[in-house]
């Protein structure tokens, strides 16, 4: 056994030219045509900073249980929690058990959990406590002996961005982020916000890249972990019938909506400093846009997809007159789903004169041949009538209709709608004859619902993303250049909005009038999502 250890230390696991990729090819039992064998990560540990937070309790730990339940975790796996609590391993394990039991998506099975017992380690401490990080480092090293984990670990930053520098410094000091030193891979997972503007995002990126190598940095945009979002690839590139019309010859405009019915909840401090554009538009909405508008990638490699996404993001152009094409709003009191709700200024910890937007609608163009002259309307907001995220591709009218005007009066444009959440699926809207002796036409919809055709077992976004981190697959993670390109879109908006007051809209309505006028100016209207 001792011999093995020295062998491991002397010869760190063979690295492929591109670091951070899983190496299933060398395994004689893995056969690409054998699709029943799931991809399982190498033995590794997941270290969670901020493990007492909501994200860890509601998403990360339950996702780990779900992965275990689906048999997707390696036999050697450990979870390390780090937080400023006076806990021992047992307390952490108990908390994790409660969290997994109440939030897991798959049915609870005691024996699945039992196999994770003994794999939970807790290291108490604050972020500037050197001793605590030394302890964390030695705990990770001990896993080699106790759990057969040869140095592989992913660090999940479930902490406010202000704390990043401190933690990164500590990881650098203890060499915990050093692949060579650890004899395995070391990856880092960061959550949005990736900065608050282009400059701060660059600083953050530099900092993270300096400690970890760029390929080992995983930025989570949980929207990309959703099945429907991945289905955009399948829909566009695996079918013959959509791609030929996916361009300015046939598409009139595209609407991307991400609506929430809730208010800002307990995020007052963060939200008021950022607003809807930084919170949602910069990441989720622009990622959806990139997937909708990108060219076909050469292959389905992370790098190949990244190249195409980046091209689209860089081709985005804001309107020349932002007064008419960049609208923001702030909710006032009103009723949402039959309940009275307070206005933004009345929310706890929000200054009464706050000019932060809770709604943003922007018209952009994409400067390339495919999308020349096609406006993309993006909107996101809180306290809207319902929670819905969708991408609607609205087609041009038929060039000629051999029907009388009065027959086609209520006929709208054809639409293809990708519903991201809830009721994930795809809907196509087209005109059809109303039964009867006259030739009257009306719009009808034809739907495909994930819930109907492939029900139930679609994994939670975090489940998929955590697995991908452990496997080293970066396909679903935006990289630093994408983040940079997205800030390049949002920064001029923020600059334009600075010092102005957002337009008020009543809670429970579809946002400010300005947003409606933005579309009406060109004879269009928002689709009621």
């Amino acid at each position: 056994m001792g011999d093995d250890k020295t062998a491991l230390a002397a010869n760190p696991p063979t690295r492929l030219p591109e670091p951070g990729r899983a190496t299933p090819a060398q395994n004689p039992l893995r056969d690409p045509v054998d699709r029943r064998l799931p991809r399982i990560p190498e033995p590794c540990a997941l270290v969670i900073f901020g493990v007492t937070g909501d994200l860890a309790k509601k998403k990360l730990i339950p996702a780990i249980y779900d992965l275990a339940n689906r048999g997707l975790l390696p036999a050697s796996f450990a979870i390390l929690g780090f937080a400023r609590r006076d806990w021992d391993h047992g307390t952490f394990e108990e908390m994790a058990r409660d969290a997994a039991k109440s939030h897991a998506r798959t049915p609870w099975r005691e024996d699945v959990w039992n196999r994770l017992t003994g794999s939970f380690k807790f290291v108490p401490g604050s972020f500037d406590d050197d001793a605590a990080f030394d302890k964390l480092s030695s705990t990770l090293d001990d896993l080699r002996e106790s759990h057969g984990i040869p140095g592989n670990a992913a660090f999940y930053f479930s902490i406010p961005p202000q704390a990043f520098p401190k933690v990164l410094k500590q990881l650098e000091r203890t060499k915990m982020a050093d692949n060579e030193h650890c004899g395995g891979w070391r990856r880092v997972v960061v959550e949005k916000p990736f900065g608050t503007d282009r400059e701060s995002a660059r600083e953050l990126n530099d900092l993270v890249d300096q400690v970890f190598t760029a390929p080992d940095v995983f930025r989570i945009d949980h929207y990309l972990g959703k099945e429907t979002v991945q289905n955009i690839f399948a829909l566009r590139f695996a079918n013959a019938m959509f791609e030929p019309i996916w361009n300015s010859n046939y598409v009139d405009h595209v609407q991307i909506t991400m609506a929430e019915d809730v208010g800002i909840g307990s995020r007052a401090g963060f939200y008021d400093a950022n607003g809807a554009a930084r919170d949602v538009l910069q990441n989720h909405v622009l990622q959806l846009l990139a997937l909708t508008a990108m060219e076909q990638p050469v292959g389905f490699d992370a790098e190949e997809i990244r190249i195409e996404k980046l091209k689209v993001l860089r081709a985005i152009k804001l309107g020349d007159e932002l007064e008419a094409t960049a609208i923001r709003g702030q909710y006032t009191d009103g009723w949402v789903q039959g309940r009275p709700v307070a206005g933004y200024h009345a929310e706890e910890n929000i200054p009464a004169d706050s000019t932060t937007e809770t709604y943003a609608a922007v018209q952009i163009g994409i400067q390339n041949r495919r999308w020349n002259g096609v406006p993309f309307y993006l909107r996101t907001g809180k306290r809207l009538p319902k929670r819905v995220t969708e991408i609607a591709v609205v087609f041009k009218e038929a060039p000629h209709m051999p029907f009388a005007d009065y027959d086609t009066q209520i006929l709208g444009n054809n639409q293809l709608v990708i519903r991201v959440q809830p009721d994930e699926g795809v809907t196509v809207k087209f005109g059809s004859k109303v039964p009867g002796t006259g030739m009257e036409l009306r719009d009808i919809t034809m739907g495909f619902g994930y819930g109907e055709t492939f029900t139930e077992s679609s994994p939670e976004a975090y489940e998929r993303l955590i697995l991908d981190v452990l496997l080293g697959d970066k396909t679903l993670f935006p990289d630093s250049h994408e983040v940079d390109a997205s800030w390049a879109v949002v920064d001029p908006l923020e600059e334009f909005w600075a010092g102005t007051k957002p337009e008020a809209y009543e809670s429970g309505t579809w946002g400010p009038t300005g947003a409606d006028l933005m579309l009406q100016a060109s004879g269009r209207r928002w689709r009621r999502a």
Partner: protein
Amino acid sequence: MHLEDTTTGEIMKALAELIHAVGGSSSLALNLVALTTEDEREEVEEAASQAAQEHPYRLILAIPRDTDAEKPRIDAEVTLGERLGAAEAVILRLDGPATAHLTSIVLPMLAPDVPVVTWWLLDPVRYGLEQELRTFADRRITYSARATDPVESLYRRAQTYVAGDTDICWTRISLWRSLIASCFDGVTHAVEKVDIKADRRDPSAQLMAAWLHTRLGVTPEVVDTKVERNSEHLPAIASVGFTMENGETMEVERNADGETVLRQAGLPKRRQTLQGRTLGQLLAEELRHIDPDTAYRRVLDTFKENHSLTVEDS
């Protein structure tokens, strides 16, 4: 809805009415045609309703009833969203010559242009239906462990294999295989010897041996062992061990409760759980792949060659 002494036309009309009553549209992923007996009906229904949560399908469940009857007769039960879950289901009870002409009954009832999967727990050879079912099915699922001579039944299927054949005995070793495969991640030495402790009469054990043989190029030694199982749909495998060319060993061993221990040279002992899945879960895994399973085909070929050798020996 129950229909007695009926025709396929009437059955389809009843189904259309039911669909219309709940709002009309449905998006089906496939047709599942199952052949079973009255005794096994409940088990099949339970599995089917569970699998339907993942793959909405039209289920056509054919149950041969009074096979000796002179006159053909079809009784049918048509349900939607009831005890058979999300599936559109037609349960057929067939008398006399009707069974032998199952194809003529099933063909007009298939949902158009979505794949057809047949699944039988009983031996279709008994009803002379094997060829008939082959003609229209894209995939055919059998469960050789349920046959009177399981390994022989699998061997017969291996001899007559056509693309699209599969067996639940293969499905039920997926978790085992996945666990073993993950042990091999990072292993650099070639395997010299494979030892399997398993019930030789279990087709799953045979397939496990054939899989390892195919992938590693080493003929595993199967030591016939009595294996206690806490679930019917588990393979009768107690342990799989490997000896590498440098003398190191690796072993995966499962006890009767499902606790599974991994012993690997240079690493501490690790625990896993390997539990049996329900028939519905196995069926759902099977339905996930509609194209022919090439990996299974290769393994089945290896099994066939080795099995014919064993037969010649004895």
